[in-house]
């Protein structure tokens, strides 16, 4: 009788014991901060003051009228396009090249992921030197070719290109491996048949591979959108650890603006509003992606 009860307790109850540590820690350090952000965003809440006045939606009204917020949003979107489009196209081609019977395949795959092992802070500092105005490698190359030097940090387009190059360098190989994993699940018979019909390697990539791995491509687009919202170290360190992202905020991203408001102005209430707005943007982008995907699926 006692043994039977213990057995039932073990079967019915113990599954919860194994997930409890995870959910407790996750709730404390993951879910709670995220939810509490919404609460803080409704207040005038400063690190420097003990009183927190309830403001309702005033912070949100201020945010939507905040020129710096829109500037940061525009910069984030531009950097996202400048970095994601070339990065995913190059990753596709690279995965196509890697998806052959190569000598030493592991070596080449490791070469592709090498930049991703490098920390984002290190990447930003190394490329900050390469794009430097006076001693930078890129400017030396431009000058040798007879084109003038560029003050990469000063311009909007040039600074955002430099930051995008950092992102492209760090993530292209990683995405190529994700595509490669998907490509290996595509039937080789399709390629054999296409080759017999005289299709070139490039045609095989666009006609067979891309349609076959479309879900993976959409997955990488969504992931890079979420990643694009988090770009912080590159603009911060490119600007010599300045929180404004250039003298005219020409490369300040949303995350960097959040960082400035929260940890340089110590305006936690307003920074939480910005964080919650970023969350809203992610939800909208994910919804658009979902909508487009399901329409694509229906039409094909």
């Amino acid at each position, binding site marked *: 009788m006692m043994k039977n009860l213990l057995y039932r307790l073990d*079967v*019915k109850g*113990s*599954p919860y014991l194994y*997930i409890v*540590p*995870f959910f407790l*820690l*996750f709730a404390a*350090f*993951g879910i*709670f*901060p995220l939810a509490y952000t919404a609460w803080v965003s409704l207040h005038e809440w400063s690190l420097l003051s003990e009183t927190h006045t309830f403001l309702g939606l005033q912070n949100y009204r201020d945010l939507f009228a905040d020129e710096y917020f829109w500037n940061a949003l525009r910069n984030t979107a531009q950097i996202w396009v400048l970095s994601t489009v070339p990065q995913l196209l190059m990753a596709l081609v690279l995965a196509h*090249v890697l998806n*052959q*019977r*190569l000598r030493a395949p*592991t070596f080449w*795959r*490791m*070469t592709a*992921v*090498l*930049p991703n*092992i*490098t*920390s*984002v*802070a*290190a990447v*930003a*500092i190394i490329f*900050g*030197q390469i794009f430097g105005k006076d*001693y930078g*490698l890129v400017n*030396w190359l431009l000058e040798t070719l007879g084109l003038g030097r560029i003050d990469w940090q000063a311009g909007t387009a040039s600074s955002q290109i430099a930051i995008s190059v950092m992102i492209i*360098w760090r993530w292209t190989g*990683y995405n190529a*491996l*994700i595509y490669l*994993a998907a490509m*290996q699940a595509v039937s080789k018979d399709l*390629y*054999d048949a296409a*080759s*017999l019909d005289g299709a070139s390697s490039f045609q095989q990539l666009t006609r067979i591979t891309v349609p076959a791995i479309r879900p993976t491509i959409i*997955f990488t687009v969504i992931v890079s959108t*979420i990643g694009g919202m*988090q770009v*912080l*170290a590159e603009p911060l*360190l490119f600007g*010599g650890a300045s929180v404004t992202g250039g003298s005219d905020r020409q490369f300040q991203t949303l995350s960097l603006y*959040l960082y400035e408001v929260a940890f340089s102005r110590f305006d*936690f209430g307003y*920074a*939480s509003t910005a964080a*919650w707005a970023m969350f809203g943007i*992610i939800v909208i982008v994910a919804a658009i992606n979902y909508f487009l995907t399901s329409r694509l699926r229906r039409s094909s």
Partner: protein
Amino acid sequence: MTTTTSLTKPARTAVAAEPQVQRRRRRSFMADRRPGKLTYLALAGLALFSGFPLYWSLVVASHDNGILGEVPPPLGIGPNLFTNLERAFGTVDFAKALTNSFVVSIAITFSVVLFSTLAGFSFAKLNFKGRNAMLVMLIGTMMVPTQLGIIPLYMLMAKIEWTGTMYAVVAPGLVTAFGVFFMTQFLREAVPSELIEAARVDGCHTFRIFWHVVLPASKPAAAVLGMLTFMTAWNDFFWPLVVLTPEDPTVQTALSTLASGYIQDYSLSLTGTAIATIPLLVVFALLGKYIIGGIMQGAVKS
């Protein structure tokens, strides 16, 4: 038709995939895509693209600042690496930073692997009310960057007086939704349910099943998850920057100290990046193929 089954079911790890891939390809003798010179030329381009910035950082780190302005710039390793290392260790307490990074990364890795294996076992192999709902919620939260909760997290750490300490860096990294998802996916296939039923019939209680059946079976996935977690923890930047002080940094926030200021001392800051990067490069050189397996495996499953 062994070929078709191996095609529809993606291999669990890249390592395991190799023999299947070869078997598959041997059959298609007519139109095998045999890589030509052009392929290896493209791959050489890849190697240059990936490797050059890292090599260049060593070039800068091994020269005196004055030489970098010369035309053409130096392209070989210079004689000043040790002088610069001395300067870097003198400017920022890199010994402390390296120790901190090791302690933090190892603590996070151990915790993530342990709790992910426990929860993954429960999600994959045990039946309980609300399991699917919780799993869906888990996957949903994977899409939300934890960075957005950084302000209350900071307030929490200030309240319990952990700001400036390594506890504050470790605590939010103790568990990840990705880790649980990863182990759940793996254990679903790695441990046959019949085996668990058989152990139950023999009178094993759940924890003994976990200890003697599941834990040994989870080793390969735990190793991969551990390496990915270690890398992420080692490279984490934003949260340590927010919660730590420059006097007691991790390697990544120490880099930020080196790179700040109006006059850029490139030899110094790129020596710093070398110090921060080399430990991971060593790990990568030794265990890279497993890390690659992990990245590809995560991709196929998600």
